[in-house]
């Protein structure tokens, strides 16, 4: 909402500096986006008159202008503009002047001819394209006719003469305050903030002729969609350019001047916030305005020339035989004001916001009017707005105002009186201010205050449709009293801060993974469905049971992730492509699958954890080591790794399911080379995904001390020669089962394959540690058990002892 301060001053006093004004307005609830100072950057641009134009001797596209600037001698300026003429008043940037964008104008020569400055366009003076009237576009700004010629002298400063220096504040209006989307609304806020009076503009015409009722009748057939329709009539309309002051107001407020009638309707819309529409009354048949919905499938050509297909819910303005406007959105071509229009009908109406929103959305036609109606407008504004249009037409001499108005207002809106308890105000805000102070604040916002010491009975003005219940009024007190004046205290109650077990375990997992050298990553919860193909998940797997987004930004973010592995592979790929030599990374995050029992309900959200590595020294076993250590921190030690050769993500010979008891808690492996190819990774990657919910359920992080051993241990190293198909896990199991209670620890420390042993064979070396629970073991004690172990290894795994 652009508010030129000069305009605001029409309705209230603004004494503060602009900085102070902005700061106080922010603190009373009108936040601002920017504050711009128009004209600040223009220096020494003066008004000149072109008295003679000559062709440039050496350039077809340039002319030499001799410009009178109040000095004795004419100023010679070369220009390429084509709209200059002898007798034109123009802005002249003389030698040494400055233009917006820190542009300095100096004397120079153009194709050998001296040029002592520059003639300026509106663009060059800092006006935005969208506000420049069409006749002033793309050429030198011709000032003729803008102001009475006797109001300026040649050589005078352009900025001063035209009043171009102004501050324009861009306020951010929150959706609860549509009443602030107009100059009077912002003036009301300013007046309340600074304790000043609000002065409403003049709306009564000096002279009116005839009666509007003789020209038109209004019938509202859908009162739920149109609460009020005010029509006024103006005859003998003269369409012409608006005076400079009006053009300037519109431009600084971000609108473009078009002609006097359009400009007045726009001006009043900006002033009161109520959109205004003007019809050529010649085109209204039967002297009748009917507000009704469209026929299903009706075709209508709007002002912008496009034919639009309407439906039966869209509200229209019709005459006795046809439709003339899409209510509150856009007028029709068939009733448009033309250059020869002489009598106009001025519409100031109030349409239902939801209806306008849905019409505008369905037609993909959003206009200044529709966006204002959408937000909700006070129906009591219509009359003043229509009157104000007539008053401005009178002031501008743009027509003869017809007396009276036709006002269809089936159910006038009144505001409810709300009870506001003084004690409640103080207890919510943590202050103790007096009733009189509260009443003053309400009255400064044009509210009516009654009631007794304990309770204020407050009736807000009808523009404040957002004030409905007590708490709304408490907010009004708070913002005008000043948030900065509220004290700072801490809540009295003492609370014990708790963290859920899940949060504690996730924190622990993250801490552990970091200690193991892995970086945490965070990836989007929504993914491309292609990721599942990239990691070669089988066709009918649960991982494809996607929760889909109806309106995704694109295919790449269209489904919720079911597993984290594809995202992780993408990150490995990205880092690999950026020549990062080594990556250890993990993510803990939510995964989503459709709720089979209740497809309409919330999906199943499960925590998952992915760990992945690549780089020098990384292997299946470094990853396995990290996993085992992480699970050990969670108190989970009794896990098995079982070969899996049929999970698409991984190398069929280098993949394991991770089993706890009889429950699978995850999977790990060397990533399948095809998957690496998909992500552009030209090295071996290792990855694991754990069902973190299951891990958290199984976790036991209670620590219980076990006494340190009292008796010494004995260690025996063995190297076992076995065939390749015998897994180390099996050997370990055999050792464990036969080690009785004195076997404390098995540590595999080497696997050897090579020339010294036969092909298809490997030698696995273990260190076995024996320790007595209640005595120092003798050599005999150990040998007895150890021999049993060796015998069983030979029996069950065909393992022969190899000389170490």
């Amino acid at each position, binding site marked *: 909402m652009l508010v030129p301060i000069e305009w605001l001053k029409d309705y209230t006093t603004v004494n503060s500096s602009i900085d102070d004004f902005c700061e106080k307005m922010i603190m009373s609830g009108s936040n601002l986006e920017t504050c711009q100072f128009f004209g600040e950057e223009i220096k020494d641009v003066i008004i000149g008159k072109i008295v003679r134009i000559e062709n440039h001797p050496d350039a077809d596209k340039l002319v030499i202008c001799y410009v009178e600037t109040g000095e004795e001698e004419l100023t010679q300026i070369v220009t390429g503009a084509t709209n200059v003429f002898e007798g034109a008043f123009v802005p002249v940037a003389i030698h040494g002047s400055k233009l917006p964008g820190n542009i300095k104008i100096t004397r120079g020569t153009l194709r050998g001819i001296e040029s002592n400055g520059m003639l300026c366009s509106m663009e060059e003076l800092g006006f935005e394209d969208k506000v420049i009237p069409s006749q002033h576009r793309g050429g030198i700004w011709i000032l003729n006719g803008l102001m009475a010629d006797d109001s300026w002298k040649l050589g005078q400063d352009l900025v001063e003469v035209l009043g171009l220096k102004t501050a324009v504040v861009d306020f951010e209006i929150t959706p609860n305050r549509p009443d602030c989307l107009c100059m009077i609304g912002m003036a009301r806020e300013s007046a309340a903030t600074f304790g000043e009076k609000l002065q409403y503009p003049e709306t009564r015409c000096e002279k009116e002729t005839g009666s509007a009722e003789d020209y038109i009748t209004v019938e509202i057939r859908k009162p739920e969609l149109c609460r009020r329709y005010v029509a006024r009539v103006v005859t003998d309309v003269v369409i012409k350019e608006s005076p400079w002051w009006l053009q300037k107001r519109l431009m600084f407020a971000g609108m473009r001047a078009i002609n006097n009638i359009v400009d007045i309707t726009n001006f009043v819309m900006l002033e009161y916030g109520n959109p205004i529409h003007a019809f050529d009354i010649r085109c209204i048949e039967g002297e009748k305005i009917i507000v009704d919905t469209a026929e299903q499938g009706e075709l209508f050509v709007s002002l912008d020339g496009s034919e639009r297909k309407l439906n039966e819910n869209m509200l229209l303005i019709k005459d006795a035989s046809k439709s003339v406007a899409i209510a509150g959105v856009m007028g029709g071509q068939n009733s448009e004001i033309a250059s020869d229009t002489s009598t106009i009908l001025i519409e100031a109406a109030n349409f239902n916001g939801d209806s306008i929103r849905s019409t505008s959305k369905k037609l993909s036609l959003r206009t200044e009017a529709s966006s204002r109606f959408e937000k909700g407008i006070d129906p009591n504004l219509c009359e003043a707005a229509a009157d104000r249009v007539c008053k401005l037409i009178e002031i501008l001499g743009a027509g003869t105002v017809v007396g009276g108005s036709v006002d269809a207002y089936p159910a006038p809106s009144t505001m409810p009186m709300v009870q506001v308890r003084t004690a409640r105000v103080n207890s919510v805000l943590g202050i103790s201010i007096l009733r009189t102070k509260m009443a003053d604040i309400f009255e400064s916002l044009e509210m009516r205050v009654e009631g007794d010491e304990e309770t204020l009975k407050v009736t807000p003005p009808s523009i404040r449709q957002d004030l409905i219940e007590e708490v709304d009024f*408490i907010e009004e007190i*708070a913002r005008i009293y000043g948030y900065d004046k509220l004290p700072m205290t801490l809540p009295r109650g003492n*609370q014990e*801060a*708790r963290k859920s077990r899940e949060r504690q375990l996730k924190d622990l997992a993250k801490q552990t993974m970091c200690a193991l050298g892995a970086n*945490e*990553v965070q990836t989007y*919860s929504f993914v491309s469905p292609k990721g599942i193909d990239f990691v070669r998940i089988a066709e009918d797997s649960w991982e494809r049971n996607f*929760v889909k*987004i109806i309106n995704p930004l694109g295919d790449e973010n269209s489904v919720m992730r079911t597993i984290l592995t594809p995202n992780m592979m993408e990150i490995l790929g990205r880092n690999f492509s950026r020549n990062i030599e080594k990556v250890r990374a993990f993510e803990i995050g939510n995964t989503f699958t459709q709720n089979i029992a209740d497809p309409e309900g919330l999906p199943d959200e499960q925590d998952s954890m992915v760990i992945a590595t690549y780089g020098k020294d990384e292997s299946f076993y470094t990853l396995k080591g990290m996993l085992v250590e992480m699970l050990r921190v969670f108190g989970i030690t009794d896990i098995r790794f079982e070969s899996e050769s049929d999970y698409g993500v991984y190398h069929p010979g280098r993949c394991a399911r991770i089993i706890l008891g009889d429950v699978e808690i995850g999977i790990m492996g060397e990533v399948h080379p095809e998957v690496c190819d998909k992500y552009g990774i030209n090295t071996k990657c290792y990855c694991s995904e754990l069902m973190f919910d299951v891990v958290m359920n199984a976790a036991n992080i209670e620590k219980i001390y076990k006494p340190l051993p009292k008796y010494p241990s004995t260690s025996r190293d063995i190297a076992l020669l076995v065939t390749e198909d015998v897994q180390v896990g099996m050997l370990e199991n055999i050792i464990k089962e036969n080690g009785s209670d004195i076997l404390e620890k098995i540590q595999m420390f080497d696997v050897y394959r090579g020339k010294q042993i036969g092909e298809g064979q490997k030698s696995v070396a273990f260190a076995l540690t024996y320790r007595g629970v209640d005595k120092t073991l003798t050599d005999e004690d150990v040998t007895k058990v150890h021999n049993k172990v060796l015998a069983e290894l030979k029996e069950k795994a065909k393992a022969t002892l190899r000389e170490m």
Partner: protein
Amino acid sequence: MHNQLEKILNEANEQIQKAVTVLDAEEIRVRLLGKKGALTEILRSMGKLGPEERKELGLKANNVRNEIETMLEEKFAQVKNAAREAKFIMEKIDVTEPGVEMTLGVKHPITLTIDEISRVFMSMGFSISDGPEVETVFNNFDALNAGPNHPARDYSDTFYITENTLLRTQTSPVQVRTLMSTEPPIMVISPGRCFRCDTPDATHSPMFHQVEGLVVDEGITMADLKGTLDSFAKQLFGPQVKTKFRPHHFPFTEPSAEMDVSCFKCGGKGCRVCKGSGWIEILGCGMVHPNVLKVGEVDTERFTGFAFGMGVERIAMLKYGVDDIRLFYENDMRFINQFK
């Protein structure tokens, strides 16, 4: 024999002086004091002497022995020390060679920021609670007093799963869940992921994180809101920062406010970080709207409360000086490693 003892002593002295290595010294010890050593020989032959003479000679022999032992001890210490010194010189290393690489991983900067925010609020007695990323329309909008035509409900703003479920656009639905499951007094924060239909650019991400906070108890005032959040800002950004509460509008709080902190980069003078204003917007907050409390069947006459919500990425960007939000989700290791 006396002369012999003298001679042994003199020789010993001479030889020990000359000894250079531990081996030399040991050889002398064996030769003189060993089982077949010269001194031992003399002592052994003393049996032939009379008692007086034996006593006198014994005393002298012992003295000689002690003297030699003392000299040898000194020698041993000296040569051992010399040997060690020589070894040190041999073993000298280049201390400027790099250490063996030890790599500690690091948490993602968003996690670090959430941890830091959580730590501050936990120190003030806030518990932490969680909610799902896919939420009901009711919890995300209706229960939070957002009208049926609230623009945030549009397909252009919010990702929908079905007509009634969506990706939460804010962590505020956890407020609703908390109010429906917990009796006051309530003091919780809930950090988590949120989603909005924003095309990614330097300052927008369709997924981002918020930390939501909710306090409901008897006698909670807007002054408590200010005090709590002011304390939070000082703990997070430093004791010198000032806070400013500006009126604002949110459907689920009233009165509502936005909190700015004085720029912790320039101290409020105006710089690039605060865009010259001296203030940085940090969070939205307000007194919980009675309509929201009613969803949790809270007695709105007896209890009042305040709520707040802040964007984690925004705070992380400010704290760490990150200028592009997309960096958080690219997960370049060179980026993440900077937060060690």
